[in-house]
């Protein structure tokens, strides 16, 4: 076999190409890293027996920029914009998870209004993530274009809200330790309320298009089954875990922020297959709308920032904290170790889609290549977060 032409100039090492010495009918295929179904730069080395997958090894790191090292070399506040770039669909929840970890590390209280605004933004983020995911999943199933365009049309409305509040569509950099950066004005809240009112009818329309669709049912039901025991042991979180029937949602378990004040239900799956993962997300969006209606109605007046919180020259005392929230993709957590200096001594991201990938091989074994594409789509990965 000829060496690949892309040798690393500093070490002279060659990237291993796929094997061609497998016995019998087995064949090794490299899917990705540049493939539209891999949701970014992600590679799967798949061993096939005919069309059936007998082995699958994910390869990633193509977007690795050592986010954690960058954070160790900047101030606590300076890392906030970088967290936007982890899971670039959900910058608001990334901000919140990081702010929560720092607030636990330094013992900073958050005003009530800011907690409500955080809930509103997190649930809007959940809407946008799950809408996009449903669209991408349909794209992976082969429904080229239409569902994704519907999804992106609605996503753009949420991004407009984010832009008018934070100044940026996707890289919001909005949360601060002890509150939020700007106070949402009344007309912004009115626009958010209108979006929430219009989102239910959109979901009805979206579901009429998809949920009972025969092609979707045939492609997703019984595909990529995950058992509850494996999901818990492998650290799978978020909609992936709840699709297996495990009632675990940090909004209920930890009751962080002001979530205990709202009435909402946790949708649970039965089979843990791709269809359940799709359906859980649709149902979660309906619950998010319920939370949004309550939060917008109950938003109290008051300060948006804790006036005692210090942003410049912030030096938490030595110690460490692990803060986590329920992000749209699962448990997003930050582990911070402080040595009393202005920069974190150690800053670690618990990225949900990175850990949810652990069971990718287990889900794909015995299925065909076309199923691997939708199984990967149903895990809901963002490579900015996987590779960090």
């Amino acid at each position, binding site marked *: 076999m000829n060496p690949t032409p892309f040798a690393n100039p500093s070490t002279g090492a060659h990237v291993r190409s796929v094997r061609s010495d497998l016995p019998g009918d087995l064949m090794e295929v490299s899917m990705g890293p540049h493939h539209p179904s891999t949701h970014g730069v992600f590679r799967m080395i798949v061993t096939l027996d005919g069309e059936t997958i007998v082995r699958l090894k994910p390869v*990633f790191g193509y977007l690795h920029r050592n986010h954690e*090292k960058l954070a160790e070399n900047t101030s606590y506040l300076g890392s906030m914009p970088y967290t936007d770039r982890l899971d670039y669909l959900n910058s608001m929840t990334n901000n919140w998870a990081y702010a929560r970890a720092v607030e636990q590390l330094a013992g900073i209280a958050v005003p009530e209004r800011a907690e409500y605004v955080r809930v509103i933004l997190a649930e809007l983020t959940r809407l946008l993530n799950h809408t996009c995911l449903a669209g991408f999943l349909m794209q992976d199933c082969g429904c080229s274009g239409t569902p994704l365009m519907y999804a992106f049309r609605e996503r753009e409305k949420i991004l407009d809200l984010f832009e008018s509040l934070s100044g940026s569509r996707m890289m919001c950099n909005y949360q601060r330790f002890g509150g939020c950066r700007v106070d949402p004005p009344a007309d912004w809240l009115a626009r958010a309320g209108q979006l929430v009112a219009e989102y239910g009818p959109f979901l009805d329309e979206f579901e009429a298009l998809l949920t009972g669709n025969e092609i979707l049912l045939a492609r997703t039901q019984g595909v990529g089954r995950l058992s509850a025991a494996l999901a818990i042991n492998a650290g*799978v979180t978020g909609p992936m875990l709840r699709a297996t029937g495990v009632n*675990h949602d940090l909004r209920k378990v930890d009751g962080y922020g002001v979530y205990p004040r709202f009435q909402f239900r946790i949708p649970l799956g039965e089979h843990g297959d791709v269809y359940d993962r799709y359906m859980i997300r649709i149902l979660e969006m309906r619950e998010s709308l319920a939370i949004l209606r309550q939060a917008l109605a109950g938003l109290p007046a008051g300060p948006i920032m804790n006036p005692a919180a210090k942003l410049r020259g912030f030096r938490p005392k030595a110690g460490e904290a692990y803060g986590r929230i329920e992000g749209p993709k699962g448990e997003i*957590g930050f*582990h911070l170790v402080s040595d009393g200096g202005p920069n974190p001594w150690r800053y*670690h991201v618990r990225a949900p889609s*990175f850990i949810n990938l652990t069971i990718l091989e287990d889900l794909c074994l015995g299925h065909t290549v076309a199923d691997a594409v939708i199984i990967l789509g149903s895990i809901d990965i963002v490579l900015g977060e996987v590779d960090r």
Partner: protein
Amino acid sequence: METLPQLRDRIAALFPGADVVLVTNPSPSAQHALRLDAPHARAIATFLRDDPALQLDQCTNVTGIDWPEKEVVDVTRTTVPDPAGGAPRAVEEKTKRIEPGRLEVVYHLYSIALGHGPVVLRLVTGNRTDAVTLPSLTPVWRSAEFQEREVYDLFGIVFEGHPDLRRILMWDGFKDHPMRRDYREPDDYEWEPTPHGDVLAKAKQHYPAPTPTPSAPSTP
């Protein structure tokens, strides 16, 4: 759930000879930890997962931390009585000691079944150079599989008993461990075949220009 000191005592009773130390966390988060010794770590982890009162079934997060060798100044304050009969004097004595370098792995455990946590486990290597082997907890919690690979990749901790310990974020031929505090990237790191600026100047040291082939003598 029982408190952490109670848990430590129970572990010490169940695993005689195990060195389990309570590590207090002075921050307001108050997430204290248990430091386990390497030989008993996997047995204790299995106990934590399977014990009916604990059921720590989810290992959420695995973090590697690098602690390089550091000089620490210990200050001891003593009061010395004044032999002349006056007020006793306070005396500060400063002693310097070298804190040896080490690598650490931190595991955050939660129980989905019982809804409690976190229980924080810490494992420490002997040093940063040759005694960097720790037992893998992947056989206990599958969620550690990719995370321990990441710690191996970025910190260079070797996990014994890991089913597939390879680099995960850096490429296979990469030599160093970039999350170590003393990591410096090689100066030809940004080599690229575009002729501009500092990068080219650095690259020239590593990739000398090919010696010119002697051309045919020109005829007058």
